[in-house]
């Protein structure tokens, strides 16, 4: 695949504080808050926006089809072009990349990507049911009907293949909840110990309540623009250097057992015995990384990236994703967290915001939330938006955002770069 098109920049962003339930605001109002924040941050108005992409996962949560047009309408963006993009948990990442394509293609000079989910209209168990409808409803839903169960089996297999431990999983939870203590947008910042995580109620063994993200109400907005338009709008845009997208089979059962698609920093002899991806790894995450790294000419991700926001709906998926992204080899993810390499002061801070585990996961908003936090990080404006600079990294030149749908069916990776 060859990427040809105009350079695309992110010029502004906004996020609402995610919470378990905010019944006083509907999804339109929530997006409006994030949208106005983004517009006011760089002093632009409705006339500066050429079109939009709507990002939301499930029509079931509100039993409202075409929620996208209701937001478009509420924001005052009609009659401009817009479309909805959906791909499970990766909806936000896919919508962000669709916004990128709108600008890269030359169709739009500026595009707003808005994401939202209102999950509080049903109780948690019904919510789990709706989410499980995003697994094959002929073969998987009736058997398990529970995504944490599917991920638990993937985590178990990862532990079997590579010796990953539940304590290593717990360390991801500790790190992300702790990072969130300095993020005012986060839903559940916490100081935790390994014991806290392991003694939390078991959801699907080996994953406890603190290995799993929560459901949320929330919205996030990213404004993208062409180079000319971006520098008209702001002195501090962030370049979206490249995008990558991968897919895999809907049913976990259908995943093949083949060879690892290698990154430039790996060789075939690294994985002589490994049958890939099976159910221990996310092949779509690897494919997405390969495409994005190629576009950004990244050959050694650990050395060439400064920050990562990745889709940690489960602690196990964060460890599995270190490997998919080539931060370490397959099998080394457990040690990677244990050695503190992904901590805020580590080799490469992962989920400095607190990730999905601590920020919450209002599905359609999540991938865009990651873009906004990364945008502020690369802009160096964390203090302005968070009210403190504890999560502003010393080196913040190039970042990666990663969005992921059910058991790794759709995965997106986008590379963002500070301009100055």
């Amino acid at each position, binding site marked *: 695949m060859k990427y040809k098109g105009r350079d695309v920049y992110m010029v502004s962003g906004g996020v609402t504080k995610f919470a378990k339930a905010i019944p006083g605001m509907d999804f339109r109002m929530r997006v409006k808050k994030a949208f106005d924040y983004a517009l006011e941050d760089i002093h632009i108005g409705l006339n500066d926006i050429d079109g939009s992409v709507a990002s939301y996962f499930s029509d079931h949560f509100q039993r409202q089809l075409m929620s996208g047009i209701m937001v478009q309408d509420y924001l005052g963006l009609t009659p401009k072009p817009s479309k909805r993009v959906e791909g499970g948990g990766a909806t936000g990442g896919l919508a962000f990349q669709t916004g990128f394509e709108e600008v890269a293609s030359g169709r739009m000079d500026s595009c707003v990507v808005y994401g939202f989910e209102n999950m509080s209209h049903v109780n948690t168990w019904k919510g789990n049911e709706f989410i499980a409808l995003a697994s094959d409803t002929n073969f998987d839903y009736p058997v398990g009907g529970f995504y944490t169960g599917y991920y638990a*089996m993937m985590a178990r297999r990862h532990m079997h293949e590579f010796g990953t431990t539940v304590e290593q999983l717990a360390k991801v939870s500790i790190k992300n909840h702790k990072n969130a203590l300095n993020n005012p947008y986060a839903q559940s910042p916490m100081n935790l110990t390994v014991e806290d995580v392991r003694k939390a109620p078991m959801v699907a063994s080996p994953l406890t309540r603190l290995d799993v993200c929560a459901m949320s109400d929330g919205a996030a907005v990213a404004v993208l623009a062409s180079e000319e338009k971006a520098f008209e709008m702001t002195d501090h845009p962030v370049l979206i250097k490249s995008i990558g997208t991968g897919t895999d089979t809907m049913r976990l059962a259908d995943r093949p057992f083949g060879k690892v698609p290698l990154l430039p920093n790996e060789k075939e002899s690294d994985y002589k015995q490994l049958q890939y991806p099976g159910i221990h790894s996310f092949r779509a995450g690897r494919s997405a990384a390969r495409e994005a790294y190629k576009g950004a000419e990244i050959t050694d991700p650990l050395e060439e990236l400064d920050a990562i926001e990745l889709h940690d709906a489960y602690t196990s998926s964060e460890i599995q994703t270190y490997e998919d992204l080539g931060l370490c080899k397959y099998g080394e993810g457990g040690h990677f967290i244990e050695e503190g390499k992904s901590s805020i002061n580590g080799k490469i801070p992962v989920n400095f915001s607190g990730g999905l585990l601590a920020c919450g996961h209002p599905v359609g908003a999540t991938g865009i939330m990651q873009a906004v936090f990364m945008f502020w990080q690369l802009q160096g404006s964390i203090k302005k938006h968070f009210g403190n600079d504890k999560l502003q990294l010393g080196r913040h030149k190039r970042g990666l955002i990663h969005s992921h749908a059910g058991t790794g069916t759709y995965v997106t990776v986008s590379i963002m770069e500070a301009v100055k």
Partner: protein
Amino acid sequence: MTLNPNAKMEETQTGTEVYGFDPLVVKSHYEIDYIHSYAQDSLFFTSMAKRKLMGSKCKKCGYVYGTPRAHCMMCGAETEWYQLPNEGKVHSYTTCFFGSEEFLPETPFHLVMVEFEGVNSLFMARLIGADAEDIYIGMPIRAKFRRNLKISPTDVYFVPTEEAKSKGAKH
């Protein structure tokens, strides 16, 4: 012609539940019966009445699936039905203590990914007849079928084999 300025909507005794007033939060009910077709996968479900678990095999490249799929994802060719062995091994497992509303009354339950000899991919199922701590990867298991079919993939479920029993818990 009817033009009645005194027309009045009929009052009924049906209403809704109100959970809160500010903001106004009410109960909204939704229920539906689908006319659901299993289409090209139908034989998988009907075969379970004959105690047969059916996967598929590619006519062109020979790839064998532990699941029904009418076309091969490896080469795009048509597949044919392939009877899976009745015995397999646990490839991975979990015990669900929570779940979707529909399955909450069944918790805790075990899920397993099953691997079969000579089959290139897996099958997802429930496992019964074992305590959570006694399940392990590689454990030999056997397919059993419900006598009264529900026409659902849970018409097949797995139990530990006699071999697993004689070996005892854990490896």
